[in-house]
């Protein structure tokens, strides 16, 4: 399930809703991303998240579907906020439920890596130095690349006297 909203979310209530009435789950992982205040001249007063309504929902749904293809998940949730947030506020929540703890952990980590590199959100920080668009980080692309499936090697035509 995915949601894009300006309102805050309640982590405990979201997890409860996901597991309600189910006794087949075993493992639930949640990730919550929050606004970091930072310090010194970089200290934040607020952060504004802009997004691309329509595409955002499509991307989140696509990423979630891919996680379900890769891991045996019984349920999942992505909630991403937009609008103006203050230090300490929630930004994003990802929850995964599985009967296997490693599947739940990996799927949640995968969802966050993909979301960072694919979901059309942009952050503008406001602090003492005026507004500043947050630059994307190469480390986020590298994190996403961790999940690349090994490319199928094109089969080479057998050469005569090739060594297997």
């Amino acid at each position, binding site marked *: 399930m995915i949601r894009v909203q300006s309102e805050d979310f309640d982590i405990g209530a979201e997890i409860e809703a996901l597991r309600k009435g189910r006794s087949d789950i075993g493992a639930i992982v949640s990730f919550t*991303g929050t606004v970091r205040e930072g310090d010194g001249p970089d200290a934040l007063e607020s952060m504004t*998240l*802009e*997004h*691309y309504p*329509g*595409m955002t929902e*499509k*991307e989140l749904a696509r990423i979630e579907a891919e996680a379900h293809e890769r891991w045996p998940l019984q349920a999942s949730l992505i909630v*991403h906020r937009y609008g103006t947030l203050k230090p300490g506020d929630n*930004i*994003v929540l990802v929850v995964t439920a599985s009967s296997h703890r490693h599947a739940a952990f990996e799927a949640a980590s995968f969802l*966050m890596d993909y*979301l*960072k*590199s*694919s*979901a*059309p*959100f*942009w*952050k*503008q920080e406001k602090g003492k130095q005026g507004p500043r*668009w*947050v*630059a*994307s980080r190469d480390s*986020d692309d590298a994190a996403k690349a961790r999940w690349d499936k090994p490319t199928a090697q094109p089969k080479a035509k057998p050469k005569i006297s090739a060594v297997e």
Partner: protein
Amino acid sequence: MRLLYFAWVREKAGLSSEEVELPADVTTVAELMAWQKTRGQEFASAFERAEVIRAAVDQAHAKPETEIAGASEIAFFPPVTGG
């Protein structure tokens, strides 16, 4: 065709969306970006560093070589920073 702009591309271009008629020889995302640079000072500035700008065709991530024929909505934006 509807064009959308986000984040600093929106700020530099000075608008968030518009309806345009494209020249017939603009058939890919890269060609559309090149054409944008010719549309006056704001667009020249917005698309100056075209190599860092990303595009989506009908709300799906696109590459410079992606064909735009038949698309109804194309968006331009900096690399995303969600999460």
